[in-house]
């Protein structure tokens, strides 16, 4: 049986690595920090031979998708993000769907967490320019 660790190239697909990382986070939360670290390292190591372990935003998301993910990180609704970017809410939803598929994220929240942790979104954007912040 072929598992995700037995890919012929020795390199995991982006989506598989995301799954491993997610599993590692769950281990971490369950208190299994050492196992979590090893699993993170395993997922990361798969990227070392053929390229950088951490993909760049440009290599994964389109510029429009990255703009939309960034807008969502600022706390607005999809409709608010759309108005700000001059695109329809439907386009926002479509771009988020594509970005989730590309990163292996299971939700918009997860997508934003991945994007910030990878440095695709500068954190000060989320901090300094929130959309629809409560008074």
């Amino acid at each position: 049986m072929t598992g995700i660790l037995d890919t012929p190239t020795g390199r995991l697909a982006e989506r598989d690595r995301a799954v491993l990382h997610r599993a590692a986070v769950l281990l971490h939360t369950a208190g299994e920090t050492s196992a979590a670290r090893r699993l993170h390292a395993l997922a990361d190591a798969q990227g070392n031979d053929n390229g950088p372990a951490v993909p760049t935003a440009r290599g994964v998301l389109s510029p429009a998708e990255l703009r939309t993910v960034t807008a969502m990180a600022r706390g607005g609704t999809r409709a608010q993000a759309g108005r700000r970017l001059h695109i329809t809410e439907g386009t926002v939803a479509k771009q988020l769907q594509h970005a989730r598929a590309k990163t292996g994220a299971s939700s918009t929240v997860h997508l934003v967490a991945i994007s910030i942790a990878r440095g695709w979104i500068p954190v000060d954007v989320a901090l300094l320019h929130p959309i629809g912040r409560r008074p």
Partner: protein
Amino acid sequence: MTDTETTITPAPHLTAAEHDAVQLLAAGCEMAEIAERLGRSYHTIKTELARAMDRLGARNGTQLVALSLAHGLIPTDAYAYLGRDR
């Protein structure tokens, strides 16, 4: 000089319970899954996340996670989407 005064805001924080819930939220778990994993009720999780959102000034779960990461309240390296040591 009121117009140059800066407001001292306390450093944002999460309680231990909120931290666990936010971290699972960031990992892509839904509320029901978070409740199940932490052995708490759906309602409790909802309340904890709402309280965390209030404290951090977040409007929704997505912004709560963004702000928690930005403030370093949940470990960014735990997701290891960043390369280690570089």
